[in-house]
């Protein structure tokens, strides 16, 4: 079947989709957006987290056909999504091509994030050292960004709750907590 939906603000269409296929598979294999990770395919790890009509969901548990006509934001569109949220014009979005070519540090420094545009939460993850192998990172970024959108001043308990569906095997979570606190503090200062 064919599925039409909006990805990172732009209309897209996926062809030859198998009826039992997940949104995660469509994003990764049909649209060439491997940012959302596939680790468990059973909702346990959160590494496939995307926003569906604004709501964080495990894309591995959404059937492709269920997203027809709906809006999906992936980690590749997060920087633009955050920018649009703060600029508010609604005319932004990420082209599929841009999203496919997205990388954290193009030609420049891969430690600091200089040289590419990052969302505040992405920058905070780098600055706080919250990324080790990075497999969990895209899902955490999407979940954390959504929380900060609704709850700009989260308590530690709020952060833990919001990220309770995202597993990380490397960091022990403390640096992730630091990163989210940092992003919240910067957001409050308007940096």
């Amino acid at each position, binding site marked *: *079947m064919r599925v039409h939906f909006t990805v990172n603000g732009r209309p897209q269409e996926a062809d030859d989709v*198998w*009826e*039992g296929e*997940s949104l995660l598979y469509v994003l990764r294999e049909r649209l060439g957006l491997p940012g959302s990770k596939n680790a468990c*395919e*059973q*909702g*346990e790890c*959160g590494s496939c*987290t995307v926003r569906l009509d604004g*709501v*964080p*969901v*495990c894309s*591995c*548990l*959404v*059937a492709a*056909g*269920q997203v*027809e006509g709906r809006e999906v934001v992936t980690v590749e569109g997060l920087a633009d999504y955050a920018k649009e949220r703060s600029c508010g014009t609604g005319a932004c979005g990420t082209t599929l091509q841009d999203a496919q070519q997205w990388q954290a540090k193009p030609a420049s420094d891969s430690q600091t994030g200089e040289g590419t545009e990052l969302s505040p939460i992405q920058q905070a993850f780098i600055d706080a050292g919250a990324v080790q192998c990075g497999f969990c990172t895209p899902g955490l970024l999407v*979940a954390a960004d959504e929380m900060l959108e609704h709850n700009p001043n989260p308590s530690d308990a709020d952060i833990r*709750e*919001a990220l*309770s*569906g*995202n597993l990380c095997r490397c960091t022990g979570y403390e640096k992730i907590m630091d990163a989210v606190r940092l992003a919240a503090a910067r957001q409050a200062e308007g940096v």
Partner: protein
Amino acid sequence: MDFLRPASWEEALAAKAEHPTAVPIAGGTDVMVEINFDHRRPEYLLDLNRIGDLAEWEVGEDTVRLGASVSYTRIMQDLRAELPGLALASHTVASPQIRNRGGVGGNLGTASPAGDAHPALLAAGAQVEAESAARGTRLIPIDEFYTGVKRNALQPDELIRAVHIKKADGPQQYSKVGTRNAMVIAVCAFGLALHPQTRTVRTGIGSAAPTPVRAKTAEDFLNAALEEGGFWDNGKIITPSVAKQFAELCSGACNPIDDVRGTASYRRHAVGVMARRTLTWAWESYRGARRASEGAA
């Protein structure tokens, strides 16, 4: 496989009548796991996401008519006052991502003995609104809904439209045993609701029998003991011996198995502990509310 996308409830019922083997998919948090792991290869998937009514609820005089696809997140956020037991149970389900998608209709469809909605529904009192194109609507009492391990009373051509749940008329509690707080399938679970209007207490037990069950003997014992001691009127602390016997009878209502999550004897023990605790917590808030209203009067 065919993917059916009815745009209305009537179309969904017609599709289910035409293809009784079609598997409805709401939040997909049970169905997609089975498909991803090739445990299930249905001929038809019947998507319910386009039917907006299923994600809505109506608060009536005595009951809440909860659309089958209202997410756990919405129940926690918007129905805490009317359905406190179910809201507490919802909060224990998995993670935010899962709670944003999953709902009570899917929990009932799966009818796992570990489903967290069930003990809360049993304790509150509920009826499942099932509908078919051929026979229209029927209300299935929650006590008759669970018919076996992962089996329910739905006919092949029926869909769940909503669940009618009694609005809380007193404190409700929900307790669940697991290895940590998030993302845990219950080792066992216990729901309890005080119903001061009818002077009854109702219970629901999860993961400790082939189906979710009420501890009816324990309820009968407690209802009689509370009545006899005038507890509803005098608001006294429940006698420890009464609480203890209630707990033992709740353990006795279990028919658990040994599995990877826990042994049968652990489950029986834990249900007793949760029964005593939830009764104590709920009774304390009942007493607190009584004192507050007397103080105001």
